[in-house]
């Protein structure tokens, strides 16, 4: 017992253990079911990779506990005792060293085989029935086009549940990465090539995505949403998007339409029947979207006015220029855009 008291680090070890345990437990309590969680997958892709994740997590957790325990035990058990002789000079133990080398190799096999199976499974070519969505990553927003449906939108992709989706990823500027954590892993968007990410969502809902490859000033503001609908809701959404741009009814919005047609807006934005710009998001059904500016701001009249009057103030480095719109002009534009349901 006096021996225990002499231990120079018993208190510190306890503190350390307590700290690690608290952190681990606290992280657990905070809950895993958050809006961008990677551990509650909502697609086949996500479930496959999550299986490998859990397998490796358990193995590494046990190894972690075992090895840290061995380390702490050795440090505690073999601490210096007063008057102890010089310990025996052991240089090694061949059998022991071979056996732990083999043990590592076996564990790696256990996690390596499912890894390779899932690599091939998740990169299979999509079935012909898959719905193709062309994703264009741009500084700093996302464009989604449905070539088969003749639909184009921005920052909010809509897809049907239970249907295999083939995202074709491409971009004109720098490297981005397409990532919706709840639907599965990320895939880089690389200028000059077309990458593919195939997945089948299995639960309707709204999932948050974000660019995961550093892409310049407003990388943090390059967010988006993927909305997984039931089949019927998806068809309704497609029909809405295929419809021509709505005619504004209110006078303010009508004025906005006029202003839009006369201003430099048309150089970058498309509104079907009015303009055909391709540098910025397609605004034909802007009013049907919940957010704008790289999925960052809720689409309210107030936010839109602030945005139009000073885009750079809302989103650092934004490429949309300040056109000097003021007062009623920006309010009219905002009213018009919101009327484009």
């Amino acid at each position, binding site marked *: 017992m006096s021996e225990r008291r002499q231990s120079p680090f018993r208190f510190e070890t306890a503190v350390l253990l307590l700290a690690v345990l608290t*952190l681990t437990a606290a*992280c657990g309590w905070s809950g895993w079911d958050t809006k961008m969680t*990677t551990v509650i997958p909502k697609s086949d892709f996500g479930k496959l990779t999550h299986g490998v994740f859990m397998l490796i997590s358990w193995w590494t957790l046990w190894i972690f506990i075992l090895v840290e325990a061995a380390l702490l035990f050795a440090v505690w058990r073999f601490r210096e005792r007063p008057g102890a002789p010089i310990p025996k000079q052991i240089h090694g133990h061949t059998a022991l060293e071979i056996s*732990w080398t083999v043990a590592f190799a076996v564990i790696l096999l256990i996690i390596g085989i499912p890894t390779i199976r899932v690599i*091939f499974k998740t990169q299979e070519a999509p079935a012909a029935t898959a719905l193709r969505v062309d994703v264009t990553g741009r500084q700093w927003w996302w464009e989604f086009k449905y070539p088969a449906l003749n639909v184009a939108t921005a920052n909010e992709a809509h897809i049907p549940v239970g249907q295999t989706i083939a995202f074709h990823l491409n971009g004109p500027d720098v*490297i981005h990465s397409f990532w919706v954590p709840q639907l599965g892993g990320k895939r880089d968007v690389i200028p000059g090539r077309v990458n593919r990410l195939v997945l089948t969502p299995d639960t309707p809902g709204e999932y948050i995505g974000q660019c995961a*490859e550093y892409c310049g000033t407003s990388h943090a503001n390059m967010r988006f949403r993927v909305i997984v609908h039931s089949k019927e809701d998806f068809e309704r959404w497609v029909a809405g998007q295929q419809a021509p741009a709505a005619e504004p009814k209110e006078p303010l919005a009508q004025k906005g339409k006029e202003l839009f047609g006369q201003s430099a807006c048309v150089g970058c934005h498309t509104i079907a029947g009015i303009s055909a710009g391709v540098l910025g998001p397609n605004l034909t059904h802007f009013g049907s979207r919940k957010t704008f500016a790289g999925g960052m701001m809720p689409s309210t009249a107030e936010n839109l006015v602030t945005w139009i009057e000073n885009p750079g103030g809302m989103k650092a480095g934004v490429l949309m220029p300040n056109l000097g719109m003021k007062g009623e002009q920006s309010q009219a534009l905002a009213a018009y855009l919101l009327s484009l349901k």
Partner: protein
Amino acid sequence: MATHAAFMPGEAAAAPSGLWSWITTVDHKRIGILYGTSAFIFFLVGGIEALIMRLQLAAPDNTLVGAQRFNELFTMHGTTMVFLAIMPMSAAFFNYMIPLLIGARDVAFPRLNALSYWVFLAGALLLNASFVVGAAPDGGWFGYATLTSKQFSPGQSIDFWVLGLQILGLSSLMAGFNFIVTIVNMRAPGMTLMRMPVFVWMSLVVQFLVVLAFPAITVALILLMFDRFFGTLFYAPAAGGDPLLWQHLFWIFGHPEVYILILPAMGIVSEVLPTFARKPLFGAPVVIYSGIMIGFFGFGVWSHHMFAVGMGPVADSAFSIATMLIAIPTGVKIFNWIGTLWSGSIRFTAALYFSLGFIAMFIMGGLSGVMHASPPVDLQQTDTYFVVAHLHYVLFGGSIFGLFSGAYYWWPKITGRMLDERLGTLHFWLMLIGFNVTFFPMHYLGLIGMPRRIYTYAPDLGWNFWNLVSTVGAFLIAVSFLVFIANVWKTMRAGAVASPDPWDGRTLEWAIASPPPVHNFGVIPTVHGRDELWLQKHGDGHGGTPAPRPPAPTRQDLASIHMPPPSYWPILLAASMLFMMSGALISIYQVVLGGLLTLYCMFRFALEYHRPHPQESLR
């Protein structure tokens, strides 16, 4: 012989002092101290950058620094910690310790050694000068094409980065060749390769990694420089270039770089544990072979940084398997370290605490590394805070803990003063707790989807609390380093004087005075085993007689020692290189003038003539 002694140990026992003697020094010990001091200062700079980032991320939608500043901060934090803090801290130990550990009087090329340091300092100053002119690099430490092209980064920020890294690479290459030649050729008689201390072995592996990996990034940087300065299109997809070429070139350097950063710390731990457990390193040959294997495999795993780019299932599988294989030699080392402690008689010192901290934290970093080795898992974790946690468990929990273990271990040898053990222990516990409070929650943040390199985040994602905790932890780490600085301050003024062998050490450096005389060894020792000094003091523990101690040096011995004289050409050559390179940002005339100056200094450096030692000419 070209080198004649200008230093006369028999007459001037004390080394010359004063600023000029430091500027012109070619003594490996002084160069080591210069490296260590500069690296620690840059470590603090990188740390302050990290603290500002942590403050910005302490709360969602925070506006302490803007997007642009934040991007500069994480770019410079990464670049600084890798190239200006950890690498030169390791270089400090290579410089100071390798000659002492192998029983040599200096490195093979002492003036080249001085040049390495001054060129390193030139590159470091150029990189940080970017802050002064308001154009700090903002492309990430990995500088991915096409973001770094003139089109998407039009200012001079990336130019600073490209030029700075090229200069730093030159310094690393010169040092790498120097240490390879030193270790291969200058070992004391009897020190076969397998009798070489494990720290020297790991250093040797690191030098080979440096000379093989740095050419890759040099090529990548030169292509980028051509793209930016001369309008070539190596990385421009629209013109048939390939942005992925950059990634391959960068990571075939970048992954061995990880081992360049961690192997020196592994070497230090392999020296510290045997000393304080009072037992030889368990399975030393296996630890050595493992180090070689890690270095070798390190060149075959670079694409595991690129699992998300879409290389296809075959490449993904191949790089996944190669990466998992590296876990074997790494795991073996950890078991060997625990085997070293097992049935030892462990004395607790600050140096040992830091080594234990290294093992405990590195286990965690290694295991999360195994997770990323699996592409399906990595697709969720790459570019999230999970990876930030992982890499800091390896490079902070690993490298920094290991390097500070070395600092506490060799401090008495280097300065002749003992550090305060109580403050050292306090430093350790504060740092260990601060480190875990900072980085452990990042595993969780990454798993719930927080991406890296974002200057702000929305408040409704569940990331708020643990980001705040992490920020608090970062300040705990900062406090721990204040304790270290206080310890140094206090003991340099009034610390206990260190004996030659304060820890009952096992290797040759403890056989000579603390700090060592300029010529290190009066008589070059003859080596009988890996733990030569231990063999001299205690025998082999199996009833054999202790190894013979080398005889005390006679006047004759001391008089015949050749030490290289000081030279001001290394610093002049480095300065003219800096002048030339910074000209690329200012004016072509400066480049030409700087180039001519550099050439001139090179010739003077190469043809420097040394006045013969008076006693030399007598003979």
